[in-house]
């Protein structure tokens, strides 16, 4: 019998539990917890597993809709109906803290975790996206070199895991800003398809059903990673080395195939991934969902290292493991399938009806906790919120006029705006032969051959807007995601979100969280896109401060017909360029102001939801007529950057000339006013299309022509001109050059 440390207030504090929380544990147990039980509570009641600081806010999200088959929070991932008996399961999750410590393995295991979440729903994963944020990578110096190392490591980790397992990474977004220095964000998204009747549940049902442990052996890796992810990053956390897990995509590929084969047999009563908090979380969550109890024997758990304590086995976050509740009498079938795939599989316990999660070591009881109380009754907090005074609107008089010719090139070369080609050429974005629109356009488009459906997906969040005005920034994140889908020809279906914030105990951070949640919720209602799940990552903070509030929005849409798929690049000489939406003049919070003037300030653009909805609907309707040759939304860098991208983002480059009138040229070129899209159409269709937009109440005007090998902006007094070749090189090669230099 091993001796365990005595429970002292210090030990409780070291586990990140408050005295009140500890009291609650004693009340639930009716006694003092032992060391193992304390560890189990500490991970299950960490923010990462319990959402104790955010759950009250998360209830504000719309989660219902006619297409929702599995709601947010019910299972590992939500499921949405896409018609003809097919559904899609998708979710976004963060792996920020592990990636800050070990970027390659941190990002790789993040990808592995989200993929497991999808296939344990019974869905075959078909593609991934990711939203990444790092500190600045341009220039020199210790910090910048570290940022480059983190960026390169994360990209290599995602590439390694995704490529090996054979799930294409087809899109996403990458931002660079000082606020992410030391706190990179790695948000990974995966989507899978399944028949409605294949939806698998993570519930331990049926008294007497055997509990199987499947997959890799348990080691000491990632001990208490969930608790680790729920603390600020400090110098000391670099010493938290056991918290790094190593992923094995090859093993997970076997899991994936074996699980889908197994789930097709109907021999499974419940299935759950062992992700954060490993065996602990999967055991008590399945029992809680099933309204049952589970009893397991740790002596039966395959172990990689000798001498592991119950505490270590229960809290280990070794990768590529799953818990399966088989139906009684079907054990042999389960065993046979895992044998075929050469996967270790051990029967470690049984479902019972006493509502307890009971962990034994042989005959000795190592932990005995009511499963529901542990999984679902963590304390919930409404933290103190303190609003930041609103940002004053930008006074244009304080913005000196600069060389705008150089400004466009500076923006195009900025890693946030520049082509991410250097990144996605490292991702296998074509495996599974469904990628119709490769990374780099407004949204990725994927043909799912099993279902005969065309899906579009995007992830978006302008965190600078969220910093300056959290509510408006969050509203814009949803609107922009929907706009990106509309530009690709898709109708939005649903949203998954990843809320990345600083320490919620700081009132301004909590206020940001609440504002962002309310902004997201309002717009998800407006777009009729329920939130099907997601993830909250708090404590993204180091001694230099918190990250920008970053509520990343992942949105999935459906394209009805192959002919509706639309891309952003200009297609043909002589086509007419139309600007949908008002030209706008808002420079506050713009990339132009931040990158060219070094000022991250001002009121970010305002979103008018009626205008946005009308724009997107009209755009989709016209795309369906087949007359829209290209569509690209105006976002970071405004109209000038959007037009430059239309010229250079295709396989073939082509120039364009456009003209505008306004007070100041910089304002006209680079403002980031919302609800604007640039489309190109054949010259003979222009008049009809302008009339159609006008009927739909959407402002639209002809602003230029496609053609030549220059991009030319004609204003009343000045004309600016850039050779397309220069634009292409500046935009396309920027990140590669920066990374080559490191």
């Amino acid at each position, binding site marked *: 019998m091993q001796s365990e440390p005595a429970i002292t207030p210090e030990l409780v504090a070291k586990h990140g539990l408050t005295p009140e929380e500890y009291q609650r544990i004693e009340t639930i147990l009716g006694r003092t917890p032992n060391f193992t039980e304390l560890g189990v509570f500490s991970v299950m009641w960490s923010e990462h597993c319990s959402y104790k600081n955010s759950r009250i806010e998360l209830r504000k999200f719309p989660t219902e809709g006619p297409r929702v088959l599995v709601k947010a929070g019910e299972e590992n991932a939500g499921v949405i109906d896409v018609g003809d008996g097919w559904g899609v399961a998708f979710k976004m999750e963060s792996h920020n803290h592990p990636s800050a410590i070990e970027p390659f393995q941190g990002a790789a295991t993040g990808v592995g975790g989200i993929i497991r979440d999808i296939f344990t729903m019974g869905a075959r994963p078909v593609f991934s996206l990711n939203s990444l944020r790092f500190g600045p990578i341009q220039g020199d110096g210790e910090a910048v070199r570290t940022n480059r190392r983190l960026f390169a490591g994360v990209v290599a980790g995602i590439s390694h895991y995704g490529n090996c397992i054979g799930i294409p990474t087809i899109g996403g977004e990458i931002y660079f800003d000082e606020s992410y220095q030391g706190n990179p964000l790695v948000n990974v998204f995966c989507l899978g398809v399944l028949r409605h009747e294949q939806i698998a549940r993570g519930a331990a049902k049926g008294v007497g059903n055997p509990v199987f442990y499947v997959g890799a052996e348990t*080691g000491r*890796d990632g001990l208490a990673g969930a608790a680790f992810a729920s603390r600020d990053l400090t110098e000391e956390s670099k010493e938290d080395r056991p918290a790094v897990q190593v992923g*094995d995509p090859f093993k997970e590929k076997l899991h994936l195939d074996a699980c889908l084969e197994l789930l097709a047999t109907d021999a499974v009563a419940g299935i759950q991934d062992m992700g954060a908090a490993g065996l602990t979380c999967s055991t008590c969550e399945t029992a809680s969902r099933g309204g049952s109890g589970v009893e397991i024997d740790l002596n039966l758990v395959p172990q990689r290292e000798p001498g592991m304590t119950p505490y270590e086995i229960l809290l280990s976050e070794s990768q590529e493991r799953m818990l399966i509740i088989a139906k009684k009498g079907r054990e042999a079938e389960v065993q046979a399938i895992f044998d075929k795939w050469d996967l270790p599989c051990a029967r470690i316990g049984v479902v019972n009806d006493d509502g307890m999660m009971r962990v034994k070591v042989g005959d000795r009881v190592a932990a005995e906790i009511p499963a529901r109380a542990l999984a679902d009754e963590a304390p919930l907090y409404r933290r103190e919120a303190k609003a930041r005074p609103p940002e004053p609107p930008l006074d244009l008089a304080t913005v000196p006029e600069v060389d705008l010719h150089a400004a466009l090139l500076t923006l195009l070369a900025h890693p946030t705006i520049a082509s991410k080609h250097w990144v996605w050429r490292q991702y296998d974005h074509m495996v599974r032969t469904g990628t119709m629109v490769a990374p780099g356009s407004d949204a990725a488009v994927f043909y799912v051959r099993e279902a005969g459906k065309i899906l579009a997906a995007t992830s978006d969040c302008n965190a600078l807007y969220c910093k300056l005005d959290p509510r408006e920034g969050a509203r814009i994140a949803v609107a922009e995601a929907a706009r990106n889908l509309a530009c690709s020809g898709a109708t939005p279906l649903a949203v998954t979100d990843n809320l990345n914030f600083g320490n919620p105990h700081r009132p301004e951070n909590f206020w940001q969280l609440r504002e962002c949640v309310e902004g997201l919720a309002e717009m998800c209602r407006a777009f009729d896109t329920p939130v099907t799940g997601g993830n909250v990552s708090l404590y993204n903070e180091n001694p230099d401060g918190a990250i920008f509030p970053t509520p990343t929005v992942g949105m999935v849409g459906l394209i009805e017909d192959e002919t509706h798929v639309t891309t952003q690049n200009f297609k043909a000489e002589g086509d007419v360029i139309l600007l949908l939406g008002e030209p706008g003049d808002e420079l506050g919070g713009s990339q132009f102001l931040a990158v060219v003037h070094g000022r991250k300030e001002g009121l970010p653009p305002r979103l008018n939801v009626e205008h946005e909805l009308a724009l997107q609907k009209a755009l989709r309707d016209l795309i369906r007529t087949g007359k829209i040759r290209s569509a690209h939304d105006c976002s970071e860098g405004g109209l000038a950057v959007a037009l430059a991208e239309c010229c250079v983002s295709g396989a073939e480059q082509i120039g364009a000339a456009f003209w505008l009138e306004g007070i100041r040229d910089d304002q006209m070129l680079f403002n980031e006013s919302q609800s604007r899209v640039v489309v190109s159409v054949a010259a003979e269709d222009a008049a009809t299309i302008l009339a159609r937009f006008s009927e739909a109440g959407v402002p639209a005007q002809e602003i230029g022509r496609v053609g030549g090998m220059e991009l030319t902006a004609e204003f009343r007094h000045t004309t600016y001109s850039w050779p397309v070749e220069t634009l292409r090189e500046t935009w396309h090669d920027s990140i590669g050059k920066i990374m080559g230099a490191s």
Partner: protein
Amino acid sequence: MKARVIVMPKQAVLDPQGNAVRDALHHLGLDAASVVRVGKFMEIDLADAGDRPALETKLHALCRDLLSNPVIEDYRLELGE
């Protein structure tokens, strides 16, 4: 003078490659193979060794910063002829 550096995955860290090689060895009849761990071996020719203790300190620093990833790997440095 030669420096030899052996980099191995840490004992506590999963080594998927080692496990795959072990399984292949079993498959080819070497059932006795119980644990396989795959690491890296590097050989560095040093032209002018100079101040040996300083060199050794420098090499250790580089082993930690460049040649191994201390988060998941251990290294061993041998200096010899």
